[in-house]
């Protein structure tokens, strides 16, 4: 019984990790962008574009890794366009993000039909396979960790620590945080606010698209209409629930993904929709509590 339990939980754990990856990548992007004081509701759309162009890249190059790179490039490009609209032309960010989402959900279907002749889904392409390290993969118990290593997982873990280090331990990170916390003050001390914001938005676009590409060329082997299915918005929630820090938003993504894994893999008596709701309810409750605390604290200080 014990061994059965062990397999069962480790399987759940792996399922949750797989679901975490796209979410956490996008959430990480959201953390970076919000640190710079910009909000991007277009994460959902950029993820969708990433998912589509990853498949397109594999289709034409026949190399799965090229799909990943194409997604990164398209994501960065979309981020840069978003940045120009916001920084140069002072766009209403929320409306712009909504527009981007509508655009993405349209253009991906139009292009799918154009390339593969069908509206709903693309043809199958080669998936991005995991790496297996010889010898180490044969070690009992831990061997599983070295078998079929998910490249995206490695990238995610590296990025989490890299972002954390960048934001909290470099002068550029300090400046980025300064911009997010008080833009005017940052400008006064001579920080090139818009330059920082431009890079932040561009990088966050690339990360969102990378997250999207995971859905289409790792978890799946094709593009399916609207396959991101709200993960972009969930990433926004994860970032907030994770207190807008790289490690926090990754843990929050894992938590949300775990709820999804339970929903998919277990027969539970709780209705499906309530489990799906969980991330949003948790986030709402968390920000409400934080805000009430802050208001009380401010009152105390007079």
């Amino acid at each position, binding site marked *: 019984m014990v061994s059965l339990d062990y397999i069962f939980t480790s399987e759940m754990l792996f399922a949750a990790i797989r679901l975490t990856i796209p979410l956490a990548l996008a959430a990480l992007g959201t953390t970076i962008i919000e640190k710079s004081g910009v909000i991007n509701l277009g994460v959902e759309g950029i993820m969708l574009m990433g998912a589509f162009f990853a498949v397109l890249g594999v289709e034409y190059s026949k190399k799965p890794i090229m799909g990943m790179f194409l997604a990164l490039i398209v994501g960065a490009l979309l981020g840069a366009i978003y940045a120009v609209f916001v920084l140069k032309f*002072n766009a209403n960010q929320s409306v712009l993000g909504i527009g981007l989402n509508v*655009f993405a959900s349209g*253009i991906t279907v139009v292009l799918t039909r154009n390339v593969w002749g069908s509206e709903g889904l693309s043809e199958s392409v080669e998936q991005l396979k995991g790496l297996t390290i010889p010898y180490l993969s044969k070690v009992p118990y831990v061997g599983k960790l070295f078998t079929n290593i998910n490249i995206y997982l490695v990238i995610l873990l590296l990025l989490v620590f890299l972002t954390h280090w960048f934001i909290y331990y470099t002068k550029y990170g300090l400046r980025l945080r300064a911009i997010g916390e008080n833009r005017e003050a940052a400008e006064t001390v001579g920080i090139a606010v818009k330059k920082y914001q431009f890079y932040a938005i561009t990088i966050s676009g690339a990360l969102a698209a990378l997250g999207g590409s995971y859905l289409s060329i790792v978890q799946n082997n094709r593009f399916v209409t609207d396959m991101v299915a709200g993960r972009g918005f969930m990433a926004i929630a994860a970032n907030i629930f994770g207190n807008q820090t790289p490690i926090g938003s990754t843990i929050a993504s894992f938590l949300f993904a775990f709820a999804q894994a339970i929903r998919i893999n277990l027969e539970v008596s709780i209705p499906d929709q309530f489990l799906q*709701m969980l991330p949003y309810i948790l986030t709402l409750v968390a920000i409400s509590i934080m*805000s009430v605390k802050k208001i009380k604290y401010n009152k105390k200080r007079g």
Partner: protein
Amino acid sequence: MNRRKISFNIVVSMIAIIFSLIISGVFIMILGDNPLLVYSSMLDGAFGDLNALSNTLSKAIPLMLCGLSFSFAAKGGVFNIGSEGQLYIGAIAATFTALLMDGYPRGIVIISSFIAAFLVAGLLGILLGVAKAKLNLNEVIVAIMLNYIVMLFCSWLVNGPMKPEDSMVAQTEMFRNDYMLKKLLDKTQLTSAFIIGILLCFLLYIFFKKTRLGYNINVLGKNKNAAHASGINIGRTIIITMLISGGLSGIAGATEVFGKYGRFIDGFSPGFGFTGIAVSVLAANNPIGIIFTSILFGAMDAGAMKMSYAAGISSNMVKVIQGLSIMFIATPNIAKHIISKIKQAKNKESIDG
């Protein structure tokens, strides 16, 4: 708003639409189609005959009401991106009421259902207003969370407690056909809901021009401190604003149910609440302007099928055009930038000449 400013806004809005049409046209050409054929078939599908026109107008109804909903909150300084959730909860409240009141006279059922939709959705709006005003939360984030919670809640209702036992589809039972809104034209989806929408547009226009409350909401939206100084009860004004804003989205949901389906269907809205935002912003939040902008977006939706059929392109091309339009609508400075460039060039010309 003076006349000059209105005409300037119209020019800015038109440039946004023209821009998106040009860029979409380039996309269409890259895809190997003829943009002129695409646009002309779309236009034909939207206005070509009486059927097409009524299709356009019927598609404009939810957009018009969601647009009004957004504009109302915007005037009071709240960015109500929660329209989509309010629309869903309104639709389910209206359906629930109509099913519950089965057997009562038609007029009473319709009025009760619409009031239920208004109030329930209005409460959701108030929740958003309180989150912003009292808890100091970012209303955009709160609204997105609420949208998902409400949509999933409705989905649970029609997959569980409100689903008829013999049904395979996630939807409620149908209420009596007799309770449906009257059709303005036979065999179309154009119902008296369109008249309701137009009336509300004029009503709100007058409300903001002539009433004390409308004036207060405007002041609050423009400058919170000024509102406070002039003795406006800020908390109460925000609550009323959000009640009405949310309520209007609820009405949008009710008109879909009572005009088109006769029941609540899971996921019936393709994002009316979000397109409504674009409809309102494009009209510079002017209720009369919203009549035209909602018809514009309704026309795109209505023309999609014909366009797809005639030009052999995915009907989703319409989403591309709409998405780009929304992006340019979000960024009026691009148009303003161009207008000032043109003026500069003209000035230079006249100097040179």
